[in-house]
């Protein structure tokens, strides 16, 4: 194995191992569900690891990286026969960095008396309809050589009898070290919890009878990640890895690799594979492929879900 590859694997392993060792069952309950869903086919194929990404959908992972991200993209995903979602994002140059907007939404079926749903329970057929929405505006700038970002978002869950909406904030920093390594740290979904009336949710049945409401938390997520890319002969190799913590409840890790090949300037095909610590309803492995023609990219990703199901996501990206 040559030196660049060794370095790449070393960096990935160092980042992933603590998370994998510490992975525990997820806490919660978390809402809105859209904040737990993937947001772009490229990042999804890489184990949903995007904290140090350079595409416009990094707005959903780390606003600091908006400094170097450019373009706009849209993607849709079919999670199951009864649930689907999509995302749109765009970044443009602003001052010393970039400014971006992003939107995500998910549409699914939900039991009328259960809230909030998990990634697993949203896959199943149910009598009610639910939607979950996120609208984000973010900005990234360079301050003293460090990329710093801030994003404000409005999130909403809309299920039968319950409509939960909240404002939240993401902050992030990132910097390149040791040559081609980008290290990034993001804290996302900073905001207050919501009390949901027990009358509308069976979940409250597990709580002491005195409670008439139940707290639902924003999935406060702290992620530390690294991404690097380098040419190995004619292949463009990229690897990314991250450890993350959901509130103080759960530590996980994710990572992925991408191998790209260009046979003509501006044209590129890429294969991707990733793994992740799993939340309810998710399985560990993800994979995907991409094709780039000049500024336009078409990306596809598949994520393993529980019950031998696969979520399939496809997107278009313009740089």
């Amino acid at each position, binding site marked *: 194995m040559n030196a660049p590859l060794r370095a790449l694997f070393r960096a990935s392993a160092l980042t992933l191992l603590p998370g994998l060792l510490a992975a525990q069952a997820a806490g919660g309950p978390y809402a809105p569900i859209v904040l737990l869903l993937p947001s772009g086919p490229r990042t999804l194929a890489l184990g949903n690891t995007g904290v140090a990404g350079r595409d416009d959908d990094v707005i959903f992972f780390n606003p600091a990286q908006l400094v170097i991200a450019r373009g706009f993209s849209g993607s849709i995903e079919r999670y199951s026969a009864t649930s689907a979602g999509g995302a749109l994002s765009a970044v443009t140059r602003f001052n010393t960095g970039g400014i971006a907007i992003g939107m995500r939404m998910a549409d699914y079926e939900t039991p009328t008396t259960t809230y909030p749903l998990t990634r697993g329970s949203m896959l199943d057929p149910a009598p009610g309809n639910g939607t979950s929405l996120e609208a984000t505006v973010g900005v990234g700038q360079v301050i003293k050589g460090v990329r710093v970002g801030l994003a404000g978002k409005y999130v909403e869950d809309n299920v039968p009898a319950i409509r939960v909406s909240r404002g939240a904030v993401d902050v992030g920093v990132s910097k390149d070290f040791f040559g081609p390594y980008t290290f990034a740290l993001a804290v996302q979904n900073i905001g207050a919890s919501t009390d949901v009336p027990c009358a509308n949710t069976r979940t409250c049945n597990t709580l002491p009878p005195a409670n008439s409401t139940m707290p639902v938390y924003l999935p406060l997520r702290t992620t530390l990640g690294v991404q690097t890319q380098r*040419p190995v*002969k*004619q292949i463009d190799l990229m690897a990314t890895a991250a450890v993350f913590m959901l509130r103080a409840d759960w530590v996980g890790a994710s990572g992925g690799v991408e191998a790209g090949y*260009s*046979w*003509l*300037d*501006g*044209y590129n*095909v890429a294969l991707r594979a990733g793994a992740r610590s799993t939340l309810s309803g998710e399985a560990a492995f993800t994979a995907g*492929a991409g*094709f780039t*023609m000049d500024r336009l990219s*078409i990306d*596809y990703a*598949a994520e393993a879900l529980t019950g031998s199901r*696969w979520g*399939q996501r*496809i997107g278009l990206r313009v740089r």
Partner: protein
Amino acid sequence: MAFSSLLTRRMLAASIVAGAACTQPLKLTKDDSPVVLSHQLISASNPGEKGTFAVKTLYYGSGTDKRRAIFKDSVTIKTKTVDASPFVSMEPPVAKAREKDWGFGVSKFPINGRVWYPVGDGPFPLVLIVHGNHDPLDYSDPGYGYLGELLASRGFILVSVDENFINGGLRGESDGRAWLLLKHLEDWKRWNDSTGNPFYHKVDMNNIGIMGHSRGGEAVGIAASFNRLSHYPDDANVKFNFNFNIKAVFAIAPVDGQYKPAGVFTPIENVNYMVIHGSHDGDVSSFNGLRTFQRIKFTDGKPWFKAAWYVYRANHGQWNTVWGNKDNGPRSGRYLDLRGLITPDEQRQFSRVMIGAFLEATLHGKSEYLPIFRDHRVAGAWLPKTMYITRFQEAGYKPLATFDEDVDVTTGSVPGVTISADSLSTWKENPLVLRNGNDPLNTNAVTLGWNSHIRGDDTTKLGRPASYTVTLSDSLAGALSVGHESSSYLSLAPTDAKPGPRAPARDTTKKADSTKKADTKPPAKKPDAKPAKDTTPVDLTVELVDAAGHTARLPLSRFGVPRRPLEIHILRRRDEEQQRYPTQFEVVLQTYVMPVDEFARAAPSFDPTHLRSIRLVFDRLVAGTVIVDDIGVSSTARPFVALGEP
């Protein structure tokens, strides 16, 4: 999963279709070399073939090189390091990183070289060759071994200078590259004077040549300039004392102007100079060396000459066996169209022949090789079969019209020259630019367009041929001492532009009728979607006229090949090619050196000693446009024209 495999198949198919749509078909100008290179008039030995000397090699260097074992363990002669900090600057972090990588900083640059030398008593001319910018760790200096073997066998000492440690992302360091070359020469002078040194009294320090490739190609010009200066132009506190007898400077695909002493292009004077450049150079994609060629001056009365050769289908890297055919790194095959390149062997055969001939002529004094620089058709058997456009000038050239001095199109470059034209559709003077569009050559030329067709229904009706005349006054003609030994010069390049038919001459016998409606234009014909490219060979007649009005006429094509622009497509993608370059050709003028004696033989009544006019008559092609520059005469071109034309 069926969905994903179907998707993958579709994506692959789409990629193939999209890729094919953007990749342009291979386009090359039709090769005329089977005709042009069908003669061999020079009877001397092929300078591209090995000579009679046995060849040995050795290395010299610091003996402490961390990265290069040959300059650590294998050096025969140890050298002292030099402080290049006045010439090479870099940001502190870069300097620190480089020092860590190489084991030395700018203040301790090594003098490393690999030497091919002939076995014999000598003294042998010394030739240094230096590479240009490239991946610092893909060492460039071994790539000229093929020249080392050749030149040493022909009685030259060749040194391939190691400047890999200056490669990488530095800018404006060409003066440093040049200064290092001169520091090598200082060591060689010392060795030649030192008893016990392997080169004691074996080096002919009166005959030194320096050659460089890419940035090294610019560096050799700077070195030739620094060699005669007493102070470093950018910091007069740094004193120079070189004054080596550098007689030959050879630049391979050089850059130009990356270093500008005092903000001007490096002035170069009084050396023999040759530059070569490939049309399909994927790195230095314009013929920058033409600008260097243009500004070289001969002022000391010695018989210097300069030549510039444009080699069709040659690239940047194949002159060096390490660099290869991917001019912008191992991955540049993604965007460089490599299909049109001549083979590495052909390209290096060319450099063997031309470097061999140049050094034999300039350092060994073998004048039998001089004619090749004036007209490459005299060496058709030696040259690889591709097309060449060549510029040439020797020290005796006296300009008549260079179009640089003023904006009056009727005056020449020296007092006593007048210019006139007849029936030209286009007559304008404008600056020449390199192919990338915004890089001027710093010289003007005249553009002459003609169309002998008379506008009207009769498409066979032709008018009098257009002409362009440069006339010398009596006093100037006398001062130039034109005689049977003299030659007339001009440089010319046809273009694809074609003026429309000329207006009919006005009938002055008819009275104008003011009541009549003005001439109504015939209804404009709808132009064809894309007119077929005119491939008719371009030619014209050169007329020399003496004081008595006797005219001698010869076709220009007798003295060289007037070619339409050579089509260049460097990039694989048509859209990128069109975006990056305003034209798909480089305007390179061909120099024609025309012995006046040959005109006298064609028209015995013509007296060359009383030359009064040089006239271009556009009578061999109905319509066309040419760019003309550097019209002049010389009385010292005889060694170059001695063999005549094929």
